[in-house]
């Protein structure tokens, strides 16, 4: 393998990418121009460099023309750098003798002036040719992968990912913030379009999580700190105390019954505040684990210290309840992490003209899920807030908070279908007249459109138009005591007033309120909407830009249960792929000290965020290549130029700068 910088022979390849590049950039001209550059022996343009024949071209040229440097001008290195390094290696060269030029994402796709775009491509190629001449042969370092996996979030995504990995024989730590796993799915009544009950399909999976020997389940817990890198993450988890020993509690719930609060008074979060709970409670009957929680804010003992502690009596000789218990910190070592932190629903109060929080009989969809649920606050009886009146007419407003410049611009994907589902369930239980107000009905899924047709047959009304307001303004005596929806029926072309007893707001999905903190904690990126960003929208939908961290479920974007489960499986598979390989190769871009040149001024040491630089006994700086992530901050600061970075050496970057500017 030639690795000398001696007789340098460069091959340049300009990709058309069909018309993606060639449509704007004159690839032929660029190749001809490159042919005239110093050290360039071969210069070609080709339709698809990433294709098999394209790569073959590189391989054969290397051999026929004794090339020892390769420049490929095509798409973003984030897409195909790996591809062309492999092609280079297949030709018998060190893969790091290849340099890529981005003339698609950052040239042909963003410019319209062909001459200027071609000029730009030439400059970038000239820079890369100058750079590649100086590039050194490098070898990837291998980092071993700890087989343990951390799954964050115990909704259906986290549950499925955890089970998949556990069944593959890997140990999983499943960390959930709430007191139970199950997430939003546990709150749903039935699931569209099949109408099978959510609990019936979810709870068995929940119990197998609890029972699985390979799963360590920590609920009521938060990830507090994440350190390390792919294969070797050190994670600190805070297990908030329930004031009940999980190991001593048998889940009999006698303490809950025995609570001094004979009548539950606290708003029940699981039931969206439609029901009440006690200070000591189990979120819902099938909760996993079956260990109750004591909530400090409302418990008499914590507020006054003078409670009769009837709960403790009830627990008797099991002694599971202990008001002195404290949070527990767990330090774990994992190789990969799957984030399944889920979503939150749009806050309907942000749209004042729909009257949520102002008019009692305006509900969110999630409230209705609980209301129609047999185990819900009204045991499945659909009544208005007064607790008795059964609604005779119901208006369901789609796209609340979604597809709107003023709130969230995206389509939340599930609202149409869950609105149809709720329409069906509400009609089934109340026989009420039901009006759906929609912008478009979107039913792209297996059995979705059929379900829509079924509702039309059932006589549910569909009115195409964005509701202007929900008001108690009475224009006609018939509206007295009702909520009137004012809407332009865009099919009839008239403005209508439709009075109803109950209004349901189909609120959209958005990223968790604390998505930003979580994102920083795991050092991944967020898309502008507050959902976590995948590495590539098509080719790497569950990976992130941080190696070893994967995404599952709605934390990456709105999706329904089947898609969520599929994605969770994919994330698990990605993690398994790393674990089974046993190691991951690291980009060899670490910084290094030229020992004989270093004066030991220590300037670099505090600049390293990973404490990878140490001061040696012979009073010089030294970089630990495993800890170094290759940011190069120390290199830029070394006052005597004795620190360098592989792949981004000073001379390589100076050469690039000269290269882009040399041809006016």
């Amino acid at each position, binding site marked *: 393998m030639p690795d000398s910088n001696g007789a340098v022979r460069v091959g340049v390849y300009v990709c058309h990418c069909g018309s993606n590049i060639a449509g704007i950039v004159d690839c032929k001209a660029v190749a001809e121009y490159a042919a005239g550059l110093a050290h360039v022996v071969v210069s070609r343009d080709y339709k698809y460099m990433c294709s098999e024949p394209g790569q073959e071209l590189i391989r054969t040229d290397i051999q026929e023309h004794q090339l020892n440097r390769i420049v490929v001008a095509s798409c973003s290195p984030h897409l195909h750098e790996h591809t062309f390094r492999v092609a280079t290696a297949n030709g018998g060269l060190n893969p790091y003798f290849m340099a890529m030029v981005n003339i698609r994402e950052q040239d042909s796709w963003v410019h319209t002036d062909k001459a200027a775009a071609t000029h730009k491509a030439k400059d970038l190629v000239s820079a890369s040719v100058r750079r590649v001449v100086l590039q050194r042969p490098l070898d990837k370092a291998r980092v071993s992968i700890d087989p343990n996996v951390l799954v964050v979030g115990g909704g259906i995504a986290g549950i499925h990912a955890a089970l998949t990995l556990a069944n593959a024989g890997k140990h999983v730590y499943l960390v959930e913030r709430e007191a139970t796993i199950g997430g939003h799915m546990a709150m749903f009544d039935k699931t569209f379009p099949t109408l099978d009950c959510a609990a019936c399909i979810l709870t068995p999976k929940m119990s197998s999580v609890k029972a699985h020997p390979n799963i360590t389940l920590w609920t009521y817990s938060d990830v507090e700190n994440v350190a390390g890198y792919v294969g070797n993450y050190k994670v600190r988890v805070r297990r908030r105390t329930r004031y009940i020993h999980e190991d001593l509690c048998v889940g009999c719930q006698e303490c809950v019954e025995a609570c001094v609060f004979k009548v539950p008074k606290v708003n029940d979060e699981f039931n969206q505040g439609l029901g009440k709970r006690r200070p000591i409670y189990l979120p819902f009957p099938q909760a996993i684990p079956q260990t109750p929680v004591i909530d400090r804010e409302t418990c008499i003992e914590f507020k006054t210290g003078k409670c009769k502690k009837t709960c403790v009596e009830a627990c008797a000789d099991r002694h599971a309840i202990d008001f002195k218990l404290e949070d527990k910190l767990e330090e774990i070592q994992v190789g990969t992490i799957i984030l399944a932190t889920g979503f939150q629903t749009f806050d309907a109060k942000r749209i004042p003209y729909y009257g949520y929080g102002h008019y009692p009989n305006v509900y969110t969809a999630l409230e209705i899920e609980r209301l129609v649920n047999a185990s819900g606050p009204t045991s499945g009886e659909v009544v208005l807030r007064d607790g008795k009146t059964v609604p005779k007419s119901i208006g369901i407003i789609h796209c609340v908070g979604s597809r709107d410049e003023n709130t969230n611009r995206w389509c939340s994907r599930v609202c149409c279908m869950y609105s149809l589902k709720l329409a069906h369930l509400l009609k089934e239980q109340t026989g009420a007249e039901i009006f759906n107000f929609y912008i478009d009905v979107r039913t792209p899924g297996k059995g979705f459109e059929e379900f829509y047709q079924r509702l039309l047959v059932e006589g549910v009304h569909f009115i195409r138009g964005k509701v202007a307001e929900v008001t108690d303004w009475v224009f006609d005596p018939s509206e007295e005591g009702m909520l009137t929806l004012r809407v332009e029926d865009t099919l009839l072309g008239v403005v209508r007033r439709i009075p109803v007893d109950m209004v349901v707001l189909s609120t959209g999905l958005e990223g968790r309120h604390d998505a930003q903190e979580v994102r920083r904690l795991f050092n991944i990126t967020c898309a502008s909407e507050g959902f976590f960003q995948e590495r590539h929208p098509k080719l790497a939908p569950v990976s992130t830009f941080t190696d070893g961290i994967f995404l599952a479920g709605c934390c990456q974007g709105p999706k329904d249960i089947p898609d969520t489960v599929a994605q969770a499986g994919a994330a698990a598979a990605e993690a398994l792929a790393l674990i089974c390989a046993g190691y991951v190769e690291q980009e060899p871009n670490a910084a290094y000290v030229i020992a004989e*040149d*270093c004066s030991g001024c220590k300037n670099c040491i505090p600049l390293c965020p990973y404490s990878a630089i140490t*001061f040696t006994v012979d009073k010089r700086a030294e970089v630990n290549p495993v800890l170094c992530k290759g940011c190069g901050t120390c290199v830029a600061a070394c006052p005597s130029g*004795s620190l360098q970075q592989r792949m981004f050496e000073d001379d390589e970057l100076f050469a690039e700068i000269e290269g882009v500017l040399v041809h006016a």
Partner: protein
Amino acid sequence: MKPKVAFYWCAAGGGCEEMVVDLAEGILDVVAAVDIVLWPVAMDFKKADIEAMEDGSIAVAFINGAVRTTEQEEWAHLLRRKSQAVIAVGACAQMGGIPGLANFSNRAGVFQTVYRDAPSTLNAEGVLPETTHQDNGFTLTLPRFFDTVKALDQVIDVDYTIPGCPPTPQLLSDAVSALLAGKLPAKGTVLAPDQALCMDCPRKDTKPERLAISEFKRPHQVLIDQEKCILAQGLLCLGPATRSGCGSRCIEGNMPCTGCFGPTSRVRDYGGKVLSAIAGSADSNDEAEIARILDKIPDPAGTFYRYSLPVSELQRKRL
């Protein structure tokens, strides 16, 4: 026959001449060993004498000072022609030195300051130097003064460099003896170690591993601790970026290094590099606070390019 040696001065402060004198008795050995054919500060030779010599007949010319006038330019070319080797002596010849700071201005600006604005100037008629002047029938001439000061190697080809403002006599005698022994290193070499000053700074061990500066100070504002790392005391010591070989003279004198030995061979733009190192030590991540801390560095450009403006990437101020 003894090798012929020439000493010449261009735009400089005389320190380099001092350095030669500072050889003390050592100078006698030099005189004994070589045949000095030119040394304006000490002996009377005329330009014509040199012009009369054969090209390449001088073994080595030691030239100090930057080039800022036509006369200096002519002498530089003349000595280059007559000498086998040219050694640039001192910061001015190597990088432009203190005179190089004139590159923040130009001839007009310099003249205005020196001949008119300077408080110490007495020049009622505001006369400025002319290249030619008629005085009762005679034409008097002066060399032309350039707008831009240049380092010696920006004017002629230079074989070796002895850095410093001024260099140490030691560096000079080492050079001379290397010359006599015919043991000069590869062309282009700077005849001083290629590590930064911290390498052999007497206070090296007192520098903290995690230096963070929240307030920069100036020497007159503080009583400088005799033992501790000067940079760690908040004073701009440029030692970490500056080539060693000076014997830490300033540090020994309890003064911060101002960078007269210039950068190591691995650094292209001394000011840019030292700026990077210093800024990195500013102890804040808050934009306003960072600005506040760096405000305490007076005249950053002048400080970081004190000796090297003409050889920096930008070379001079754009007017």
